[in-house]
């Protein structure tokens, strides 16, 4: 068990270094930050001096080494754009992204599960067909378009919900701000959460439906029916339970991608999260923020995958037997 964890940890570290290396190579193609940092009056000599002082003239390998060294100490420097420490900037923005991701993940899971079960049980129902057709829209429409459409209907025409921002937030301790506790904060969450969760919701719904149909065909369901158990006990007690294992795995893994790919939703709704921060940083070639953001996303994926691997190890006895067999 310990050897397994150590091996996975080592692999995770290698993944992180690889992500850092790839992103660093990419930064060379994003452009020159100096132009955005100085006014148009700055002389060429001044620009060179600033470039020198930031170490941008050093060979890329040296810059990379310096970045890794600092990153190991949790030090990501000062943002070129906002002049604030990068770690603080990201930590400040993280609550907004995590709250949005959690709400949309939960929404996707609950609604997706309910609709999936319903369409599996009432396979030929009219409503089921309507839901299945509508879900195609969720899968195929780009997030950007869905966001703009929702804004148009609910903010501009009906004026029920705010079009952008996070509403009023309440600070919890030094490092967390929440929108859950205010009315405007909760209202502001609705549209972006629906936009971000729609794709996952249709994905989960289709997954649940397919798994459920599969399980309903198995022998033990037939036997359960034959025993005279109520439809409710068969469907929810036996069938649904057995569908849930893959669904939970997928939902967990999708949570990582919701956080990582909230960029578009955050841009459309002007949501002050890390995704919007990243996009603004790319426009400005704010290398310290871009590097720290990509490292953070890599870390989130690595941690989630590590947890999933460990869960498999705990859940699936075959993995353990295999290892034990090899050891002897």
């Amino acid at each position, binding site marked *: 068990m310990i050897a397994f964890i150590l091996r996975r940890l080592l692999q995770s570290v290698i993944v992180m270094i690889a992500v850092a290396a790839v992103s660093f190579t990419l930064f060379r193609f994003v452009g020159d930050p100096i132009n955005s*940092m100085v006014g148009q009056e700055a002389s060429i000599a001044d620009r060179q001096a600033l470039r020198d002082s930031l170490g941008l003239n050093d060979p890329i390998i040296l810059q990379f080494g310096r970045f890794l060294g600092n990153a190991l100490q949790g030090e990501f420097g*000062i943002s070129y754009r906002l002049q604030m420490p990068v770690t603080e900037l990201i930590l400040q923005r993280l609550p907004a992204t995590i709250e949005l991701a959690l709400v949309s993940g939960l929404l996707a899971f609950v609604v997706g599960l309910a609709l999936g079960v319903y369409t599996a049980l009432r396979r030929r129902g009219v409503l089921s067909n309507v839901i299945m057709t509508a879900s195609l829209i969720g899968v195929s429409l780009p997030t950007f378009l869905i966001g703009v459409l929702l804004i148009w209907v609910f903010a501009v025409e009906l004026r029920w919900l705010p079009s952008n921002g996070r509403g009023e937030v309440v600070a919890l301790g030094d490092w967390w701000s929440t929108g859950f506790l205010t009315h405007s904060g909760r209202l502001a969450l609705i549209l972006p959460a629906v936009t971000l969760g729609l794709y996952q919701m249709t994905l989960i719904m289709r997954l649940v439906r397919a798994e459920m149909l599969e399980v309903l065909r198995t022998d033990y369901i037939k036997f359960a029916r034959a025993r005279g158990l109520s439809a409710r006990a068969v469907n929810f007690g036996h069938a649904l339970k057995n569908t849930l294992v893959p669904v939970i795995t997928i939902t967990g893994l999708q949570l990582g991608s919701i956080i990582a790919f909230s960029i578009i939703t955050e841009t459309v709704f002007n949501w002050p999260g890390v995704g919007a921060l990243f996009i603004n940083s790319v426009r400005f070639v704010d290398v310290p923020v871009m590097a720290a953001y990509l490292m953070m996303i890599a870390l989130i994926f690595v941690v989630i995958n590590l947890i999933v691997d460990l869960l498999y190890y705990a859940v699936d006895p075959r993995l353990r037997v295999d290892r034990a067999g090899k050891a002897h």
Partner: protein
Amino acid sequence: MTKLARALSLSASAAALALAAGAAQAETVRWARVADALTLDPHSQNEGPTLALLRHVYGTLVSRAVDGSLTPDLATSWEIHPEDPTIWVLHLREGVTFHDGSAFTAEDVVFSYERVLHESSGFRAIHADVVGAEAVDEYTVHVQMSGPSPLYPNNLTNFFIVDKTWAEANDVVAPQNYAAGEENFAVRNTNGTGPYQLVSRDPEVRTVLSVFDGYYGDAPQVTEVIYQPIPEAATRIAALLSGEVDFVQDVPVQDIARLEQTDGIEITTGPENRNIFFAYNATSPTLRSTNVADNPFSHPEIREAMALALDRDAIRQVVMRGQSQPSAAPLPPFVNGWTEEMNAYGAPDYERAAELVRSVYPDGFSVQLDCPNDRYLNDEAICQATVGMLGRIGINVSLNSQSRSLHFPLIENLETDFYLLGWGVPTFDSAYVFNFLVHTREGSYGAYNGGQYSNPEVDAMIESIATMTDLDERNAVIAQIWEQVMEDRVFLNVHNQLLAYAVREGLNIDVHPENSPTLWTVTID
């Protein structure tokens, strides 16, 4: 937010009632723009949105009115020292206080000079001719220049004055230094003399300002300003349509017509201090991107042909949807040195242009055009339209459009043959254009002269106007320089940009030529 909007619309109607009764009332303006101020440090970033926001908090010695003229602010008057033409004498306003209550004196101006001239300041180049400042008495400052600088007060409109005691107490005597790796206190805290003081700031989310009771000028009608950057154009406009903001500064040209027809929303347009032009390398013996052996732009015929082929009115109608002022003059109209003759342009003549090209290159030639796609209004579309126009006369242009962070280094490193650039003139004087775009690149001159134009006579004239004190004589030399530059067709100007502000009905905001609206001058119907 809905609640807030409701409360605000209530308070707006209450304000209307109160105004009818002749009483003043608290009024909030929610102001949305494409980008946030990068910092609140007054001497760090010489950048549009940063200056526009800071102007509400920090005062300047001299202000720029909407018509482009200079008006007194913290300095009530200024003159060249009667005995020494290299000294500017500034007479300061008395009885002004900073937001923390301390008095504004000559010491603060001298200190602000030291800070703005510091190595890490973003405004050093604007005050490059300043040797030092000295307080003569409590309300008089002598600014020693390296030579006579008759137009220097034009450079004071973006020079914010900070409180010396505050800066020293908070250890912010110098602006942010990136390499030091620490955040400066002044990045998020302010103490100015401006009409508004900072209430709260969440970078890139919301900045709240409220009126400063001790402001020396007329009490503003707008008592609270909520500044919200909204980078996405569709969201910005939606926020205005849904009543969540009152004033949108960056309105995309394609939305203007629709917004004009929307009830409750007004559009104000005005010329911006920025012209958009093409420039090309006519100096080097060869080009990097052409298929001919010599440099096609070195032939006057080709430069003339390109001028004949550029259909400025078509660009205005199709690309800019009417939101531009076509012009052949490579400078905005408020700038000293601009003339009607320079501005005038003829109708395109493709036959004559094609003939001129054929006279040099019977089979035409090809060249690459470098263009930014995220810097100016519809910049990429302007380039695309021009590629089509030049194609009609036998110039096969391949378009390389990319982000500004990749485009501008091409000009700086002289790696482009033919490019698009926009230029604003913050000093409102031609010398600024000459110094950066026309003079041969050497020392502090010619930083944006990507076409490598070089004419020793013109260079000598440019250097001479820097220290000329007789303004008539100086203007004559400026006219002479322009004559040469226009004759050599150094630039192929397209148009001047227009700005559009969208506001909720009842707010009267003037379009500022530097795109730096002043909310304390806003009136409310």
